[in-house]
């Protein structure tokens, strides 16, 4: 039986009376990308810290490759790595020096070649002789990612990996991550505030709020939980009649000059459009926006906060 790359059982972290992480149970399979979403203070960073052994859990267990993390810490940390924009690196060090030190700490066998290859991939090869404090935020993020891939990790924990990157570089990095997954079956735990990025990258998404998992599924299935779509109509001539129709049919709408936005349950769209045509209301353009992961995220976070 193949063990999951990461298996977390009933992970809990309490600070006195405050529960930062509450009984989390989840796993990541070989080559899978798991997105972790949640508002600030949801417990994402605390979870990642426990997964890296820089914070002791109050209770619960963490297994990597089927082995308990507590017992096999050193051996496991050799096979995983991480990148976070919330921490830094030695300010006065040159980029090459930083990568050399981490290459040594992770005992990367072909350190020089590996650094050269990754520096090219992340487009920091021209920065190797620059000091860390001279780098822009985006360059620093690319350095963190280079460090994170140094030891050929089987699992990589990425906390906001594309924050502060230019869009073109962010795209390249997403492509790199996908390629690494495809070629080397790297598993990735991915936190981001960029919902479209999570939708694009992740096989599964876990939404945390107040330290608990409040939703856990594929991005598509989570979005499907929202039944309301947004129909947008461009009506240039029959606006008065259209407003009359919406009012008569008790349909909520938002008007902006010629544009009408109507939030409506997906299954009622056909009936709504038939009604319009029966009343001979002409529209010049129509677009239907399906619910996204972001819509689901906002709804589910709103619901749990109300409760």
């Amino acid at each position, binding site marked *: 039986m193949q063990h999951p790359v990461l298996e977390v059982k009933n992970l809990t972290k309490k600070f006195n009376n405050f529960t930062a992480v509450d009984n989390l149970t989840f796993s990541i399979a070989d080559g899978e990308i798991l997105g972790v979403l949640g508002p600030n203070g949801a417990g994402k960073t605390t979870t990642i810290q426990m997964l890296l052994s*820089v*914070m*002791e859990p109050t209770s619960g267990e963490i297994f990597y490759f089927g082995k308990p993390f507590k017992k096999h810490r050193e051996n496991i940390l050799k096979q995983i790595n991480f990148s976070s924009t919330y921490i830094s690196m030695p300010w006065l060090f040159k980029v090459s020096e930083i990568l050399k030190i981490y290459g040594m700490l992770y005992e990367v066998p072909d350190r020089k070649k590996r650094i050269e290859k990754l520096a090219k991939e992340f487009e920091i090869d021209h920065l190797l002789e620059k000091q860390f404090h001279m780098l822009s935020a985006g360059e620093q993020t690319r350095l963190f990612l280079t460090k994170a891939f140094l030891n050929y990790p089987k699992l990589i924990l990425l906390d906001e990996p594309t924050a502060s990157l230019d869009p073109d570089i962010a795209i390249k990095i997403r492509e790199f991550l996908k390629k690494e997954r495809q070629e080397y079956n790297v598993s990735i735990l991915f936190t981001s505030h960029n919902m479209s990025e999570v939708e694009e990258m992740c096989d599964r998404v876990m939404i945390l709020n107040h330290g608990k998992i409040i939703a856990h599924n594929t991005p598509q299935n989570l979005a499907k939980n929202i039944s309301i779509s947004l129909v947008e109509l461009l009506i240039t001539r029959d606006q008065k009649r259209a407003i009359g129709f919406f009012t008569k049919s008790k349909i909520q709408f938002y008007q902006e000059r010629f544009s009408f936005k109507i939030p409506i349950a997906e299954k009622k769209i056909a009936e709504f459009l038939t009604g319009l045509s029966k009343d001979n209301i002409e529209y010049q353009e129509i677009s239907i926006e399906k619910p996204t992961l972001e819509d689901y995220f906002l709804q589910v976070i709103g619901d749990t906060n109300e409760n």
Partner: protein
Amino acid sequence: MRINVNRVWAMIIRYTIYLRHNYDRLTDLFYWPALDLFIWGLTGLYIAKLSNNSSHYLLIILSGLVFWIVVWRSQYEITTNLLSEMWDRNIVNIFASPLKVSEWILAVMVFGFLKTIVSVSFSAILSFIFYRFNIFSFHWLLIPFILSLLATGWAGGFLVAAFIIRYGMKLQTLAWAGIALIAPFSAIYYPVSVLPSWAQTVSLLIPSTYIFESIRDILFTGTVHYDKLVTSFILNAIYLILSLWFFVAMFGKSKKLGLSRLI
């Protein structure tokens, strides 16, 4: 407890590069010891002149200055290297790597030892050039003196580092001030007998006291009191074990709260 030499070496290289880039640390290594030697050496010369050219005062001051560097430097390297990880917001990176706390401990001890040798050698050369004070006149006893003082510094360093890893940078002043607490009781420049009786009791508990007393014994009478050396080593062994245990325990407590809060 298996130590991975490659990772220890990586941390030694890390702190060596830090030293190369950081002028503050280079100043600590050469500038301040040199300045101390000039100011206090000249003061010693002046006092010697006032007291019928007795060289005792100069020897006391110079030996005190050179050997205290060992204690100071070895504790300082532990605490400031730990602080450098916090100042650089790098502590999570290193302890989320396969590096073990025991490997970090060994790395800062070795690095501290190497820097101590550099700093003491530099001061010794200056004292010889300017005042004809030769620390090699202690012959083989130089080795136990330095080892014992090194251990005192390490014990003090890990004690202070334990508080810093637990309470963070708000206690960083201890990195400079901590070891200075034992200086008045260590009888660096004066014998234990001049201390008030309560302070004499305290000084008997401090390993470096026995070394500085031994140094003066050799300088003035040429006799070696091995019992003092042995006492110093026994006390050092006890303190070093306790301070290492305390540091590891505080590191564990700090991990309960999360190392990222330290940055």
